[in-house]
C-alpha cells in the first residue's frame, strides 16, 4: 500500500538548506480515472460513435445551407410574435421576481427565527425548482389554453423558483448591521428588512432579475414549441413545414433581439454594481 502511495506522490523537493519538502498528492490522481470510467460507461450507454460523426457529420449543415439566403420579406410576420415573446418574458420575469422577495425572506437563515418555517419553505421551493419548465408549460396549457398567457404564467413561476434561491443566498450573506440598528429602534422585522437589508441588495437583485430575463427570452423559443405563444410557435410551424429560409429569418430576429438585450443588461449591470 505504501509503495502505491509513493508511486502517486510527486517527487520530494530538496531545498537549498537541505530540508526535504514533500508536495501534496494532486487530486488529479483520482479525478482523472473517475472521469475516464464515467466517460467510457456513458459512451457505451448512449451509443456514442465518433465514426458516425465523421462519416455523416456533413449532414449537420444540410439545414444550415438550406437556410441561405434568409427570406427577408418574412420579417413582417416575425415582428409581432417577437414583440409578444418580449412582452411575455418581461411581464413573467417581473411577476416572478416580485413574488420571489417574500419567498426569499421566508427561506433565509438570518431573517426568519423559526427553523420550521425556513425548512418548509425551502423544501417546497427546492421541489418546485426541479420541475422542468416544459412540465410547467403543459400544466398551465391545461389551465389557460394555448397562447401567450400560458407562456407568461409558466415563465413567471419558473423565474419565481429560481430567483427565490438566488435571492435568499444574497440575503444570507448580507450585512446585518443596518437591520439590527433599525430593529433596535423598535421597527418590526419585516420593516427592518425592507429598510436595512433591501437597500444593500437592490443592485444585485436587479442584476439577477436581468440574468433571468435573458434566460427567459431564450426559453421562450422552447415554450412556443408546445403551444405557449410567441415566436416559438412560428419557429415550430416553419420547421415543421421545412421552410428553412423563413426559419433563418426568425433566428436572425431572435439573434438581434438577444444581442441587444444582452448588451443593454450588461450595461445596466455595470452601472449598478
Amino acid at each position, binding site marked *: 500500500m505504501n509503495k502505491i502511495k509513493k508511486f502517486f506522490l510527486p517527487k520530494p523537493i530538496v531545498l537549498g538548506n537541505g530540508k526535504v519538502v514533500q508536495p501534496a498528492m494532486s487530486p488529479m490522481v483520482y479525478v482523472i480515472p473517475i472521469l475516464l470510467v464515467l466517460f467510457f460507461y456513458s459512451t457505451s450507454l448512449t451509443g*456514442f*460513435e465518433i465514426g458516425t*460523426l465523421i462519416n455523416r457529420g456533413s449532414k449537420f449543415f444540410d439545414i444550415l445551407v438550406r437556410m441561405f439566403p434568409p427570406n427577408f420579406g418574412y420579417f413582417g410576420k416575425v415582428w409581432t410574435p417577437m414583440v409578444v415573446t418580449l412582452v411575455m418574458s418581461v*411581464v413573467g420575469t417581473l411577476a416572478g421576481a416580485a413574488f420571489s422577495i417574500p419567498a426569499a425572506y421566508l427561506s433565509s437563515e438570518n431573517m426568519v427565527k423559526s427553523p420550521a418555517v425556513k425548512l418548509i419553505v425551502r423544501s417546497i421551493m427546492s421541489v418546485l425548482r426541479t420541475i422542468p419548465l*416544459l412540465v410547467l408549460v403543459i*400544466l398551465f396549457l391545461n389551465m389557460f*389554453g394555448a397562447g401567450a398567457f400560458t407562456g407568461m404564467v409558466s415563465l413567471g413561476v419558473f423565474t419565481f423558483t429560481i430567483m427565490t434561491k438566488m435571492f435568499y443566498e444574497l440575503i444570507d450573506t448580507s450585512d446585518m448591521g443596518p437591520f439590527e440598528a433599525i430593529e433596535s429602534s423598535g421597527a418590526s422585522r419585516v420593516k427592518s428588512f425592507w429598510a436595512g437589508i433591501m437597500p444593500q441588495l437592490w443592485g444585485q437583485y436587479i442584476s439577477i432579475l436581468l440574468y433571468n430575463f435573458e434566460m427567459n427570452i431564450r426559453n421562450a*423559443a422552447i415554450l412556443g414549441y408546445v403551444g405557449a405563444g410567441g415566436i416559438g410557435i412560428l419557429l415550430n410551424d416553419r420547421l415543421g413545414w421545412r421552410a428553412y429560409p423563413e426559419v433563418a429569418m426568425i*433566428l436572425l430576429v431572435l439573434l438581434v433581439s438577444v444581442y441587444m438585450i444582452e448588451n443593454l443588461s450588461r450595461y445596466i449591470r455595470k452601472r449598478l454594481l
Partner: protein
Amino acid sequence: MSTKITVMEQLKNEPKNWGIKSILILGLIFIGYLGVTYINYNGFTEFGLTVMWNISKSIISPNTALLFGEGKNGVLYLITETAAIAFLGTIIGTIVSIPIAFMSSRNIVPGWMANIGVAFITVVRTFPAVVYGLMFIRVTGPGAFTGVLTLAVASIGMISKLFIEVIEDLDPGIIEALDATGCNGIQKVQYGIVPQLMGNFASTAIYRFEINVKYATILGMVGAGGIGAPLIFAITAYRWADTGALLIGLIIFVLIVEYGSAKIRKKLATGE
C-alpha cells in the same frame, strides 16, 4: 455644538428620489399596457385544476412497477441515460470550448480576432437547443447520441463565455515571476496558467452539467433520448401513475445533482 434631531425629523430628510420613482412607475404602467395589448387571456378551465391535482396525487401514489422497474423502461435506466447524456454533453462541450475561449480572449489574441470569436459565441448561444436537436437528428438518427451532441453544442456558448471571463482575469504577475526564475514556456503554462484556470474551469463545467441535467427533459421533445420524452408522453396522455413515477425519479435526481454540484463548487472556490 451639534443640533439634536428626532427620528421623525431625520426621516423627513430622507432623499425623495422623485425622478427615479416616477420613471419606475411610468415604466410599470407602460409594461402593463403592453401586456394587456399583446397577451390575451383566454379564460380559465377547471380541467387544469384537475390536472394539477392529479399530478400532485400521482407523486404520492406513483406506478411502483415503473419506478423500481428494471430494463429500458424503468425509471432507474432512464435516469442513468439522462445522466450519461448530460455528462458526455458537458465533457465534449467543455473540451471544445477551451480552444474557442482562448482564441476569443483579449489578453491572448489581438482585439479583432477576439471580436470575431465573441460574435461567433453569441450566434451559437442564440440558436435554441431544439434547432440543434433537429440538425443532429439528421446525422445520428433519434436517440441518446443526438442528445449528447445537442447538449454539447448548446453548452459551448455559455461555457466559453464564462471561460473567457476567467482567462481575461489571468494575473500576468505570476507569469512574470516564473519568467524571472528562469522557467521555460511549458513550465510557465504548467505552474503559472493551469493552476489559475483549473478551479474555475471545473466549477463552470460542473455548473453546466447541472443545467444540462435539467435541459435533458427538453431534448425529449425532439426525440433525443433521456427521461424527457416518456415524461411528456405520460403527462399529455394523462397517465398519472407513470407521470408520478417519472417525476419522483427526476426530482430526486436533480436534487442530488444540485446538492453535489454546490458542495464540489464550494470546495473548489474556498478549498474547504
